[in-house]
């Protein structure tokens, strides 16, 4: 080990980038610029922080705390299983612990930790000062924190969820489960909203806020990976949100989606859940591969197969959505369907294999020094490949039938998830800790924690393969001595404690390093990406002057690149665009907008400062959710009012700030447009993300309708009449008309007389309101009775969806009308943007109402 440690300082030379960064730090920063970016330090002020790096640290810190709690639960379970017929935990407590352990690790640790890591590192890595929607990040954090607390509140009221992290129906229905599942569903719903918010945030940040010159082909692989995962999370989390909403409606409002006695279908839950559940594995795994690529590339001083790694990420992101039923091989799916899923499950190994070979090829012959981050990556490679191999085994249907619900699956999933995510995360912590804290980690504690983690992990989970082959079922609190598996289990328990000790060492290492660690240079590892070009820890504004990029490895100079990263001395167009923001603007936050493909500078984006709106909005949702959980509906109304107040404050246009941004001193000399409309705008891309979310929800609801219908004995069930009267038809027609009017208004804006645009917008708003009112009126007259059958539950859900999306459409259209009448001539780009957003939302509502209506008409 001494030899390994001795090699480390070689990687820590002062380099040109350190020198340049120092010169930046030494330059005089205008106090007004600093004050603009600074996060408040008071207790209340901290609640209003929207800066990406403090929020990233909060996400990671909270996720790590949940991880420790999940780990303690795992150790308790391992004590119970150490030998046969133990009574350390009863069966009920064991059920609760494995439910909370799985839920904590899957929902409260893995994804949020990686979101936090992305929130912190991604803007720096791609050369942006912040993320695209800072307040959305803050809202996402509060939703995550509150959702996690709701999960754990179940312990305090003695109603802990006990139906597994997957909550299969009918076990999770009121017939078999208590209030714990309500805590689970409500908490999970809030965490899902957080995940969706982070997804939109990351996608738009990667597409629009990259440094000038950072083409897609120059983007760090971590950015590629987190971008793909964020895109996936928009679809996967939305599907789960629909599923948990349906479950909660079943449980609290008497809906019948999953009740087979009223025409519901249990397997519908499994389809919806696993359409989220399997991509979730890759949502966790892909960012982890991004970390691996960064670490391997840094210490190998090259990256082999960048193209193939990027393509593998894209292929994985797509194919992961074709695997959901491989969790359902034993549920009686049609044999042909099983084979399609088996084929997809085998084919995804192509992409993962490509990545593994690329990393091995990168290190081959380079003899990278075995520093703790790289050791964790090597540990990942060994463990993940083993997990991948067992994954290929269980992709084969007959084999899966043999080992389904045995400890073989427990071993497989832990090899994939701990190997594929926790080890890379630990590598990432060691890799970026100097950047986060400004301190180097302890010189040898990292080796100790790695050794304990690797040995402990394998001692815990490798024997489980054998236990599975011997037929030990999972999710059972004990086992008979006659199985002769006491030795295996004792080894697993000892291993679990060794694995746990690794994290105690890691915590000790981090605490020691925070206070006594050696001061870190800006680029202690000699890495190639932009986050290492700023001081450690980074200044509050990130980049004094946004960098412009000329290479895939901007901090590594190479023989064929004149300058990998443009400096202020450079006079090319990219550097000139970035230079406009050199220590500017002084009184509002701004970053550069670039083209989504080629990273060409397009505009300047203003960013919001401190705001309590995200917190107030999240508190409103928390109050409403808890009140519904405990059936105190008056308090729920208060929660909704608080939520509405938060949203209104969030969206209400601040005239003073708009004037400051658009007509201030900086705007007068800026050579790029500020806050543009159209595809240059981050809001336009954010809206696209919102449309994907709404579209996915509609697809999930339509699928649910068709799936229940497919296996129903009669349709509409129990002789119900379908909601397809003339008024429903009229509502659809009015939704379409509202969308067309808004489209025409958008088209005429700036081309024809202002009166025409104003008239069309007024007609559109009025029509949208009338359409919504018509749908609600028709629904009231029809009299939805969701408790009567699954059919009625499904059509009610369709209309609830339409009321929600329709209301959003009306609000956006109203906001647009106000902007049009007040600011059409003063700030045309702002009005144009509003017209575009209103048009997109109304088009979606029109399409959705048409689909819902015709699905019902065609099937009844």
């Amino acid at each position: 080990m001494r030899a390994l440690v001795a090699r480390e300082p070689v990687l820590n030379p002062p380099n040109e980038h350190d020198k340049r960064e120092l010169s930046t730090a030494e330059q005089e920063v205008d106090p007004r610029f600093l004050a603009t970016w600074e996060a408040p330090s008071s207790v209340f002020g901290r609640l209003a922080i929207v800066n990406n790096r403090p929020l990233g640290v909060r996400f990671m810190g909270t996720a790590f705390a949940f991880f420790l709690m999940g780990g303690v639960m795992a150790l308790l379970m391992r004590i119970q299983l150490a030998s046969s017929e133990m009574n350390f935990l009863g069966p009920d407590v064991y059920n609760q612990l494995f439910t909370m352990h799985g839920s904590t690790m899957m929902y409260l640790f893995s994804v949020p930790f990686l979101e936090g890591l992305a929130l912190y590192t991604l803007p720096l890595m791609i050369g942006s000062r912040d993320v695209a929607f800072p307040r959305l990040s803050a809202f996402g954090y509060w939703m995550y924190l509150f959702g996690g607390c709701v999960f754990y509140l179940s312990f305090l009221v003695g109603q802990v969820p006990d139906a597994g992290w997957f909550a299969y129906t009918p076990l999770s229905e009121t017939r078999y489960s208590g209030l714990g599942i309500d805590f689970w569903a409500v908490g999970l719903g809030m965490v899902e909203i957080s995940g969706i918010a982070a997804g939109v945030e990351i996608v738009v940040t990667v597409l629009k806020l990259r440094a000038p010159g950072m083409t897609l082909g120059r983007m760090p692989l971590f950015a590629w990976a987190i971008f793909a995962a964020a895109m996936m999370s928009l679809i996967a989390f939305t599907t789960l949100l629909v599923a948990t909403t349906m479950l909660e409606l079943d449980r609290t409002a008497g809906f019948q989606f999953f009740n087979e006695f009223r025409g519901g279908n249990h397997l519908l839950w499994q389809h919806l859940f696993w359409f989220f559940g399997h991509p979730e594995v890759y949502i966790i795994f892909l960012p982890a591969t991004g970390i691996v690529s960064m670490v391997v590339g840094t210490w190998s001083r090259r990256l082999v197969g960048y193209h193939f790694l990027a393509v593998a990420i894209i292929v994985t992101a797509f194919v992961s959505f074709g695997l959901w039923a491989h969790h359902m091989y034993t549920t009686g799916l049609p044999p042909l369907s099983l084979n399609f899923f088996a084929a997809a499950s085998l084919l995804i190994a192509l992409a993962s294999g490509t990545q593994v070979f690329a990393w091995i090829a990168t290190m081959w012959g380079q003899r990278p020094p075995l520093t703790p981050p790289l050791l964790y990556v090597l540990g990942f490679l060994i463990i993940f490949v083993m997990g991948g191999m067992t994954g290929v085994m269980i992709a084969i249907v007959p084999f899966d039938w043999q080992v389904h619900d045995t400890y073989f699956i427990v071993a497989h999933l832990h090899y994939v998830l701990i190997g594929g995510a926790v080890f890379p995360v630990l590598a990432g912590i060691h890799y970026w800790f100097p950047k986060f804290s400004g301190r180097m980690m302890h010189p040898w504690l990292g080796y100790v924690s790695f050794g304990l983690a690797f040995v402990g992990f394998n001692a815990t989970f490798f024997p489980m393969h054998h236990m599975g082959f011997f037929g030990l079922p999972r999710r059972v609190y004990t086992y008979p001595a006659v199985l002769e598996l006491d030795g295996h289990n004792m080894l697993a328990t000892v291993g679990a404690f060794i694995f746990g000790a690794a994290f105690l060492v890691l915590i000790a290492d981090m605490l020691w390093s925070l206070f006594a660690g050696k001061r870190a240079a800006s680029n202690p590892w000699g890495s190639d990406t932009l986050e290492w070009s700023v001081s450690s820890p980074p200044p509050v504004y990130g980049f004094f002057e946004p960098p412009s990029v000329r290479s895939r490895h901007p901090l590594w100079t190479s023989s064929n690149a004149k300058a990998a990263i443009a400096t202020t001395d450079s006079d090319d167009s990219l550097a000139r665009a970035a230079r406009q923001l050199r220590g500017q603007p002084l009184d509002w936050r701004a970053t550069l907008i670039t083209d989504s493909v080629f990273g060409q500078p397009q505009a300047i984006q203003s960013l919001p400062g401190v705001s309590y709106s995200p917190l107030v909005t999240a508190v409103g949702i928390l109050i409403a959710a808890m009140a519904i959980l405990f059936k105190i509906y008056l308090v729920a109304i208060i929660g909704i009012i608080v939520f509405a107040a938060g949203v209104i404050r969030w969206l209400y246009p601040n005239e003073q700030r708009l004037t400051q941004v658009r007509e201030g001193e900086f705007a007068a000399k800026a050579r790029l447009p500020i806050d543009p409309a159209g595809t240059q705008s981050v809001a336009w891309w954010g809206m696209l993300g919102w449309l994907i979310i709404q579209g996915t929800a509609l697809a999930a609801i339509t699928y649910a309708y068709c799936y229940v219908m497919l296996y129903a004995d009669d349709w509409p069930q129990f002789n119900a009449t379908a909601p397809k009267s003339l008024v429903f038809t009229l509502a659809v027609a009015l939704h379409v008309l509202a969308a067309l009017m808004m489209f025409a208004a958008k088209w005429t804006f700036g081309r024809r007389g202002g009166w025409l645009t104003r008239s069309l917008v007024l007609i559109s708003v009025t029509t949208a309101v009338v359409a919504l009112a018509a749908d609600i009126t028709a629904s009231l007259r029809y009299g939805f009775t969701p408790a009567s059958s699954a059919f009625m539950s499904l059509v009610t859900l369709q209309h609830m969806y339409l009321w929600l999306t329709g209301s959003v459409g009306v609000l956006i259209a109203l906001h647009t009308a106000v902007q049009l009448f007040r600011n059409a001539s003063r700030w045309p780009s702002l009005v144009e943007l509003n017209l575009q957003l209103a048009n997109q939302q109304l088009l979606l509502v029109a399409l959705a109402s048409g689909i819902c209506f015709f699905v019902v008409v065609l099937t009844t």
Partner: protein
Amino acid sequence: MWWMLLGGGIAWFIQFLVLYLLAEFGGVAGWHERLLLGVDMVSWGVLSITVAALAVAGWCGWLAKRASQEFRELEPSTTEATPIELDTELPAWKGVVDPHFLVQSAVVGNAIFAFIIVAQTLPVFFF
């Protein structure tokens, strides 16, 4: 450009969903018992969507290949980035930056998805 890069993946995803729907819904509806030219309707559906998806992936791959050739012809003028006048409208993407990554990745990606589309269809020949 995005379509070139993602077209094959989108084609596969649509193919996969249709395969699933044919297997699940077609099976329940009894389509596998109806024959046309000795082949059941589910298999006809599978083969049709496969051909369509393959055509889309192939078309996207061909577009990428053609773009790759165009960029190669532009090569001499793109070794140095063309200056952009900030006060004028931004130039078209061609000739501004190095686009090789996208077109090469699109060619490789569409080829992989074409393979996956074909492999995904194989089970139907064993039923």
